[in-house]
C-alpha cells in the first residue's frame, strides 16, 4: 500500500499555473494517497539540457536529486516531459559520474508521471469527475514516446462522466522548449497544424498531461482569437474550471 507520495510539481505549474497544482493535490488525495510537497524544489533543468547546456543542467539536476533524496515514497510529476527528464535525462547527464548516476538511478526508479501513477500504481481509473462536452486529448511527445504513457490518461478520461473524448493525432505541437524561440517560424507552422486539427475536432477543451505543450497550444488559440481552452488532466479530473488559468 502506498502511503505518502512526493509531489514534484514542476516550475511551470508552480510559477505560472498554481491552480493546476491545486487540482493535482485534489486528485491525488481523492485517490487516497497522502501528498507531501518538498518545499526546496525548483526546476528539473530540462530546458538547459535540451538546449545543449549540460553543465548548467547538471547543477539543477543535482539540486533536484538532493531535494528528493531526503524523502521517501514515489515521486509524482504532473508533466510527461519533466518526468522523462528525471527518468532518462538524468541518466544521460550523469553517465560518466558513477556517484551521481547511482543517485539518479534511485530517483528514476521511484518517479512517475501523474496519470501513469494513478492508473498503473494505484489502479484508479474513476475519480468521480464529470464534464459535459467534447474534450480533445493531446498525446504529448515525451509522455507518449519517452515514457510510453498513452492509455493511462485515456482510461482516466473514460472515467469522466458525460465527457466525449477525442484523441488528437500524436503529432508534436511545435513547442520543444527553447526551440519555440530559437526556430519560431518552424514552431509556428507546427502549431498551426495542431490548431487546425483542434478546430476540426469540435472540442471546446484540449486536455493533456504536459503544461508546457498546453501553454503553447492555448497561447496559440488565444493569439488567433479562438474560444477553445486548454486544461491539464488533473483539472478535468478534479472537476475544476477547465482552463489553464
Amino acid at each position: 500500500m502506498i502511503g505518502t507520495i512526493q509531489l514534484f510539481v514542476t516550475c511551470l505549474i508552480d510559477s505560472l499555473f498554481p491552480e493546476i497544482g491545486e487540482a493535482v493535490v485534489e486528485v491525488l488525495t481523492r485517490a487516497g494517497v497522502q501528498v507531501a510537497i518538498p518545499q526546496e524544489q525548483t526546476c528539473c533543468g530540462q530546458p538547459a539540457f535540451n538546449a545543449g547546456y549540460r553543465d548548467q543542467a547538471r547543477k539543477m539536476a543535482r539540486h533536484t536529486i538532493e531535494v528528493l533524496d531526503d524523502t521517501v515514497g514515489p515521486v509524482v510529476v504532473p508533466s510527461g516531459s519533466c518526468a522523462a527528464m528525471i527518468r532518462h535525462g538524468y541518466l544521460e547527464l550523469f553517465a560518466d559520474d558513477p556517484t551521481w548516476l547511482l543517485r539518479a538511478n534511485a530517483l528514476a526508479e521511484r518517479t512517475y508521471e501523474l496519470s501513469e501513477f494513478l492508473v498503473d500504481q494505484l489502479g484508479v481509473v474513476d475519480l468521480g469527475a464529470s464534464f459535459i462536452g467534447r474534450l480533445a486529448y493531446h498525446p504529448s511527445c515525451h509522455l507518449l514516446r519517452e515514457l510510453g504513457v498513452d492509455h493511462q490518461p485515456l482510461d482516466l478520461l473514460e472515467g469522466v462522466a458525460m465527457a466525449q473524448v477525442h484523441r488528437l493525432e500524436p503529432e508534436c505541437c511545435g513547442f520543444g522548449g527553447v526551440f519555440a524561440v530559437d526556430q519560431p517560424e518552424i514552431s509556428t507552422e507546427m502549431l498551426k497544424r495542431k490548431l487546425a486539427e483542434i478546430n476540426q475536432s469540435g472540442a471546446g477543451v484540449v486536455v493533456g498531461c504536459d503544461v508546457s505543450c498546453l501553454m503553447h497550444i492555448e497561447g496559440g488559440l488565444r493569439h488567433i482569437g479562438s474560444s477553445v481552452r486548454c486544461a491539464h488532466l488533473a483539472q478535468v479530473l478534479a472537476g475544476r474550471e477547465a482552463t489553464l488559468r
Partner: protein
Amino acid sequence: MRIRFRRRVRAAITNPSLQVALDRNAERRMAAWNEAFASLPDVEDLRQRAREVRQHTLENLDHYLERFTRRLVENGVRVHRADDADEACRLAVSIAQARGATLVAKSKSMTTDEIGLNYALQQVGIRVVETDLGEFIVQLRGEPSAHIITPAVHLLREDVAATFERELGMPYSTDVEDMNAAVHKVLREIFLEAQVGVSGVNFGVVETGTLCLVTNEGNGRMVTTLPSIHIAIMGVERLVPTLDDLALMLQLLPRSATGQKITSYVTLIQGPRREGEPDGPDERHVILLDNGRLAMANSPIAESLLCIRCGACLNVCPVFREIGGHAYGSVYPGPIGSVVSPGLFGLSDFGHLAKASTLCGACQEVCPIGIDLPTMLLRVRDAYTKNTPQPPAMRLAMSLYAWLMISPWRYRLAQRLGAWGSRLLPRQAGWLPTLPPPLSAWTASRHFPTFAFQPFLARRKKLNYGAKPMLTPQRQKRETEPFAKRPQSEDVVERFGRELEDIGGTFIRCKEGEAPDQVVAHLRKLSVKTLIAWGEQQPSLNAVIHRLKDEGFEILDPDLPRGSGPGRDQRLADLGRVDAGLTGAIAGVAETGTLVVPAGRNRSQLASLLPPVHLVLLPVGVIYQTMADWMAEGGEEAIAGTSSLNLISGPSRTADIEMTLTIGVHGPGQVIVFCLD
C-alpha cells in the same frame, strides 16, 4: 551557416507548392508505412534483431572490413580504400580516365553525392548522367536531392513537366506516364552508350563478398550490367556479416523506405562477368569510403552509424514536413541528417541542424533499427554549445537560470520579479499578447501566460495533504496488445501467385508439357516477334525455346562482345529493340512474389532487363514460403556461386513524381510467370 539556414527555412515555409508536396509526402509515405508493417508479424522482434546485427558489425568493424575486402578480392573485384571524399573522387576519376570513358551512367547513391563525385568527373570532361528518375529530375534542374529516397520530393508534377519541357524539349505534359516515357527514351541511350556505370551499395555481405543493391526502376541493374566498367562506392559501415542478416535487413529496408514488402529488384553482385556468361561488366571496382565514419564510430554519436538509410525518419519528422530537405543545406537532411552531417562534415558548419528539432521522438519510433535519434540530437547540441562560439547572451541566460534554480530563495525571488514584470506589460484576458525581444519570437504567434503572484509552493506550505484510505484497485494494469496473429499457413503456390499479381505481375499455372503452347499463345497476343532468351538450360526451358524457333520467332544472340567497339555497340542496339525476354528462375519466394534470377553460363541478364516484357518459367517445386527458407535450402550457396543474381518482384516501377506509381520505367513493364507443375 545558421543564418543561411534560417533564410532557407523562411523560404521553404512561404513556398506554397513545396508545402503541398511535403504534406503529400508525409501523408502518403506514412500510410504506406503503416500498411507495409501491418503485414509483418513480430515487428519489434525483427527490429531488435536488426539492431543487434548492425551493432555487432560496427563493434567489430575492422575485422569485418578486412574479411569483406578479402572476399571481394577472391571474387575478382578490385577494392580501393578512400580516407576522404577527395581520395574517393580521385580513385573513381582515374579508373574512368584510364579506360578512356566519356560518359558515366549513375544510379542513385547518397555516398556519391556526399563526396561530390559528379563534379569531380565533370571537371575532367566526363559527362555524368543520373539515371534514377528523381535524381535525373534534380540533376536537370541543377539542384541537390531533397530527400535520401525520393530526391524530387519537393516538386509537384507541374514543376517536373516544366523542367522536362525546358531541358528535354518534350511537349509540356503533366501526365506522369508521358513524363516517364520521355525519360525512358532519353536514358535508354545513356545506358547503352555509357562506358562506366557508378552505383552505391545498400549492404555489403561479408561472408560472400556480395554487393547488395535495392532498387525499383531497373536503372541500378542497367548501370551494374551494361557498361563494361562498374564502380560501386560504399561507406565502410554498410556491412552485414551473413546472407541471413541481409535477409533480415531486406524485410525492413523496403518497408521503411517506400512501404513495399520488397522492391522490384534486389541485385546481389559477387563479381565481374565470368567465362561463358553472355553479359555483365568486365571489371568491377569497390571504393570503400571512410570520410569521417571511423572517427564517428568512436564518438558519442556512434549509434547513428547503424542507419540503413531508409528515410523513414524524414517522412515522419514534423520539422522536415515544414522545411523540406534543401533547407538543411546537407546531402543528409532530416533527423538522421542532423546527426550525421555534423558527425561527418563538422560541428561548426552543421551542428546548428541538431537544434532544428523538438525532440518529439517520432523518428526513433519509426526507425527500423530503433536508433535513439533524440539522444543523438541532444549529444550533438551538447558538443555544439561546448565547441563552437555561442551567442554570449544565451550562455549568460543559461548560467543565470541555473544559478537562480539551485537556490530556492533566489527561485522565489525570480518568481516575484516575474509576477511584477507581468503586471507592467499589456494584458489580454490575463495573458500577455506581446513580449519584448528576444521573447517577442514567442508572442509573434502565441500569447504568454503571466506569472502568479502566489506560486503553488507558497500556497501549499503544509507538508502533507489527504489521509483517506486507499481506494481498492478498480482495474488491473492493461496488458499490451499482442501483435495480430500470423495468417494461417496456406498453399505456398497460391500465395506466390497472389503476391505476384498484387505487385502487378501475371501468374499462369500450367503443366510442364503445356508450357510451349502457353508461351506461344501469350507471345502472339502481345505481338512479340523478337526475343532474348536464356540458352541451353533445364529441359522445360529448352522445349519452349525449340518450339519458339519452330514457330518463327526471332531469338537474338544475347552474347555481348567484351570491352568496347562497334560490334558491341551494334549488338547492344539490337538487343535494346527486342520485344520480350525469356528466362528461367531458380527459386520463387511466396511471401513477396519474388523470382530468383541468377546470371551464369548462357543466362542472359539482359533478358530480364532490357525488353518491355519478361517471361519466366518457374518450376512449382522451387517455390519457398520465405526468403529465409530459400536461403536455408541452398539459396546461400546459389548466391555465392554466381557473379550476380537478381531477386525480381514484379515489373519495374517508380513513384518519384508526386509518389504516383508508374510501372515499367527502365526494366520490363510486364512480368509473366509460367508456374510449371
